[in-house]
């Protein structure tokens, strides 16, 4: 040892007197998650039913707990640093011995379970409610106990991804037909009062529609989903034309698997109750253009019905069609992109690209 080296510290290592082989589990967290959970700002939960893999939920995210096995032995030593160092050896005890640890990978919760439960009693309108059995309706808590998801993600899913609304304490999925009916009520009322789409007096609208549709549905579903931020000072709002067009076209396409492109454009011009140019982008995640067909047509292929596990999602996408253009594929992937990922990284993982006539296309990787 060189003269400049500080003296070595000498530790004597032995198993703790109360050592037991199955005492501990080691879990890798991020610095932020550990700090917040130590201070009590965030509660972490391990969730799962007997047939599930356990997941970890924070208030806002859901993580898969991946087992990282190792051929190495990991000894957990509780007093290594604090062991007294005199001239004699410091006694250190080993409290645990591990051959694996758990690491986290963010995942998208399996929403199909929630959707499936809610579809057992969809909301079709107040007049149909008498026939709906209470045990087929689910509260937020009941839905949460059915899915491995954080509270914030479930709420986001219910409020922004599917057409759902909390009615009398139960979260209900609204049928596409019912959503179109709501739009029609508004359109009729606007026409009757000679009002424009851009300047709707909210208070008056609520009063006028109170007799027709449940106030909860209008307040918690219709306005948040189909109105843009109020522009005027008098509690007025503007309707979101794109969101409404998507709702109407989605309800229409559900009735059949395929429709000729020019037929859909003709239908669009007559059925959409306002002036909005037909744009294929508005069909993203609802239907795709099958231009390889003899007569080009649109195929109904709703994203909401696809699984949330990336690998199976890609498998089904490429089973549906062998190749996808990038701009067609993106709407079908966006909702399963997790923290630290991007749409492109995800596509690269499961698909191979090629360029044809200046447009980027993807085909499935061999293992998808």
């Amino acid at each position, binding site marked *: 040892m060189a003269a400049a080296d500080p003296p*070595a510290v000498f530790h004597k290592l032995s198993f703790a007197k109360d050592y037991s082989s199955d005492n501990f*589990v080691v879990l*890798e*967290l991020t610095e932020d998650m550990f700090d917040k959970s130590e201070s009590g700002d965030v509660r972490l*939960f*391990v969730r799962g*039913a007997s047939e599930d893999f356990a997941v970890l939920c924070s208030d806002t995210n859901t993580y898969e707990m991946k087992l990282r096995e190792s051929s*190495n032995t990991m000894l957990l*030593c509780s007093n290594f*640093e604090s062991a007294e160092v005199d001239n004699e050896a410091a006694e250190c005890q080993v409290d645990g011995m591990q051959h694996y640890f758990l690491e986290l990978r963010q995942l998208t919760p399996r929403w199909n379970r929630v959707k499936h439960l809610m579809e057992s009693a969809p909301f079709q309108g107040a007049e149909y409610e008498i026939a709906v059995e209470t045990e087929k309706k689910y509260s937020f808590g009941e839905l949460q106990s059915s899915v491995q998801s954080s509270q914030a993600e479930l709420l986001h899913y219910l409020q922004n991804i599917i057409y759902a609304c909390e009615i009398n304490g139960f979260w209900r999925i609204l049928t596409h037909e019912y959503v179109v009916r709501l739009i029609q009520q508004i359109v009729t009322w606007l026409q009757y009062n000679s009002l424009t789409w851009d300047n709707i007096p909210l208070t008056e609208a609520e009063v006028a529609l109170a007799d027709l549709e449940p106030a909860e549905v209008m307040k918690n579903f219709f306005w948040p989903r189909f109105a843009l931020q109020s522009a005027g000072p008098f509690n007025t709002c503007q309707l979101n034309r794109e969101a409404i067009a998507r709702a109407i076209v989605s309800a229409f396409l559900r009735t059949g698997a395929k429709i000729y492109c020019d037929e859909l454009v003709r239908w669009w011009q007559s059925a959409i109750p306002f002036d909005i140019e037909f744009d294929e982008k508005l069909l993203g995640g609802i239907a795709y253009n099958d231009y390889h067909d003899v007569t080009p047509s649109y195929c109904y292929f709703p994203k909401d019905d696809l699984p949330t596990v990336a690998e199976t999602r890609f498998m089904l996408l490429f089973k549906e069609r062998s190749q996808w253009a990038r701009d067609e594929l993106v709407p079908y992937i966006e909702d399963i992109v997790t923290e630290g990922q991007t749409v492109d990284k995800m596509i690269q993982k499961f698909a191979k690209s090629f360029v044809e006539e200046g447009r980027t296309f993807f085909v499935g990787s061999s293992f998808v």
Partner: protein
Amino acid sequence: MVNIPIVRKVDLPLGQKTPEWVMIELQGDLQTDSDLLAGQEIGTIHISAPSTERQEEYDPNSSVIRGESRAMMMIGNYALSGHVVHVKKPLVVLKKIKSVDDGGNWISELEMNAVIRKKIIFKDRPRHIVPSSAMPKS
């Protein structure tokens, strides 16, 4: 669905940090003739602080990371050499405990018993050391 919360170490006074433990990682497995590991001696570890001189001459082929403390471990007749590293993400040592909830029911919880931020890694295969007493006399 089972819901197991991860909680602060139960007997940790408020405002105090979770205890820090150290992980010792070695190649292969530890074996003993005895069935019971509790109380058994494993070996000794020497930690030497990073030499300031040696930092200058960094050798990319060496397992010793520049500026890290070096470690030497002896288990029986085997010598292992390694070094101390800081882990990128904290490793939390969880222990399953039972506690009573507000309604008086027994519930399972995972207690954050300790956090690991430092590892002593012995990457290389252990070297067998022949004690001088076993050497043939010349």
